[in-house]
């Protein structure tokens, strides 16, 4: 009774796509609870429904079975307190980098001056102040992705959905952005759900790691990340957890689990 309302509560969630060739079951019986301020990462084979899960949580698709609640309220559609970084950066090609970020504030109550400052600060945060006036086609894949991250963060959402946000970045920028994400989520007290194919990233960022398995997409297991693993990438705890997850993602392990 005294426990706080979970930031996210998913219960017995199933998703089926009706295709011409028949029904395609993409998610089966997903149950997951995320506490406020928690950082949860999701790993799993390509096609196991990770992006689909994020789209359902955001409320882009309301055709599903089961229950999704954010702050105790069933999701009925996108809301200001939830932001997403799509797997493809999805910048509007006819808007500059700056205007793309500002687009997230079109419906915000802030005054114009504050908005402009927020946009500037967030472009600065992702290291792209010099490219504020650039068109998306003039940006590299990694730069475009960082603009998309700035766009998601600029509204200071309480819930962040991140679909492989660092996938196209070079190794160094990637490490820097991981630090930033971790810092921002902790600093703003936001709740984050991050999909990644990089197991190191999943362990380093997440309080918990959700391991999914495909056909249909299910949660294979959820692993707690010990604080010392989260703090230090070379700690034995980090290495052990990473190897365990890699094992789980390996073909033999998945088949063993599927029994």
């Amino acid at each position, binding site marked *: 009774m005294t426990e706080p309302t979970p930031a996210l509560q998913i*219960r017995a969630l199933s998703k*089926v796509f009706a295709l011409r060739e028949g029904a395609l079951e993409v998610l089966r019986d997903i149950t997951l609870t995320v506490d406020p301020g928690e950082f949860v990462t999701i790993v799993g084979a390509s096609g196991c429904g990770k992006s689909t899960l994020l789209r359902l949580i955001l409320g882009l698709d*309301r*055709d*599903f*079975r*089961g*229950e*999704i609640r954010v702050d105790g309220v*069933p999701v*009925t*559609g996108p809301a200001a307190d939830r932001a997403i970084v799509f797997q493809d950066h999805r910048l509007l090609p006819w808007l500059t980098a700056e205007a793309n970020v500002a687009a997230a504030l079109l419906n915000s109550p802030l005054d114009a001056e504050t908005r402009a400052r927020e946009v500037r600060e967030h472009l600065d945060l992702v290291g792209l102040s010099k490219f504020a006036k650039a068109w998306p086609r003039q940006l590299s894949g990694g730069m475009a992705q960082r603009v998309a991250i700035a766009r998601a963060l600029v509204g200071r959402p309480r819930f962040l959905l991140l679909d492989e946000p660092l996938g196209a970045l070079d190794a160094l920028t990637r490490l820097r952005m991981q630090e930033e994400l971790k810092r921002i989520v902790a600093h703003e007290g936001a709740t984050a759900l991050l999909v990644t194919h990089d197991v190191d990233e999943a362990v380093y960022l997440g309080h918990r790691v959700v391991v999914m398995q495909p056909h249909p997409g299910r949660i294979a297991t959820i692993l707690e990340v010990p604080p010392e693993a989260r703090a230090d990438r070379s700690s034995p705890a980090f290495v052990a957890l990473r190897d365990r997850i890699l094992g789980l993602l390996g073909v033999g392990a998945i088949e063993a689990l599927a029994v």
Partner: protein
Amino acid sequence: MTLIHSSPAPVPFAPRTARALVQSLAPLGALSGQILLGLSFPLALLALWSLGAARGWVPPQILPAPSVVWQSFLDLCADGSLALHTNASLIRVAEGFALGATVGLVFGAAVGLVPALRAWVWPPVQAATRVNVLAWMPLLTLFLGIDEALKVVVIGWSVSIPVILATARAVGDVPATLRELGAVLNLTRAQRLRLIVLPQALPQIATGLREGLANAWQSLVIVELFASFEGLGYLMTWGRQLFQLDLVLVAMAVIAVLGFSLDLSLRAVERWLQPWQTGAGHGR
């Protein structure tokens, strides 16, 4: 907790009534539901038109009642004049299309295959074709009079232009990969034409022909409005002179229906000619 979502959840923006309507049509299949929706608007217009005519909202010289138009349609059918005019128009379109398609295919292929023609003859011809046949019509009457010859030439002219363009381009720009294939297989020039150049050109040529037919129909109306004593365009001109809008509307409707069916049938021919494009094939 009884707040379990049932599937599918309601779509937020669709008005419930429209949704219910579509769902009640579900047994007919989604396609026929769409067709009914598409028909609802013209039917509503028709109803409004009838109502307006019955209440006398618009004077009959501006818009006669649908029943009057229908009656003139029946009259024109009964005394055979509609068949006469339609027949005259269709023959013109057929002759003009045949002329334009033949000239277009031959000239287009020549331009596409012979670089010298492309360089020396094509540019002035292209400049002339850029000017719509409509503007040439007053000139053509001086050479051809205002009888059948004028009509067939004007229609043929408008048909030939897209056919020439499509044929010349399709035959002239064989992709390098296919040209290399011809070389690798050691095909003779005739074999290359038959096995590579023509089949890969066919879709574009078919599109050109379909565009030509659309043009034929447009210029039929143009040339019949310009000068004629029979044909659907003449029927309209005549109705306008008599201030009989019902005749004008009947002729418009026939022109619309025939033009639409011509396009549909040419699309069907196009599919039949290129079974490899649809994937279904017809057993070859």
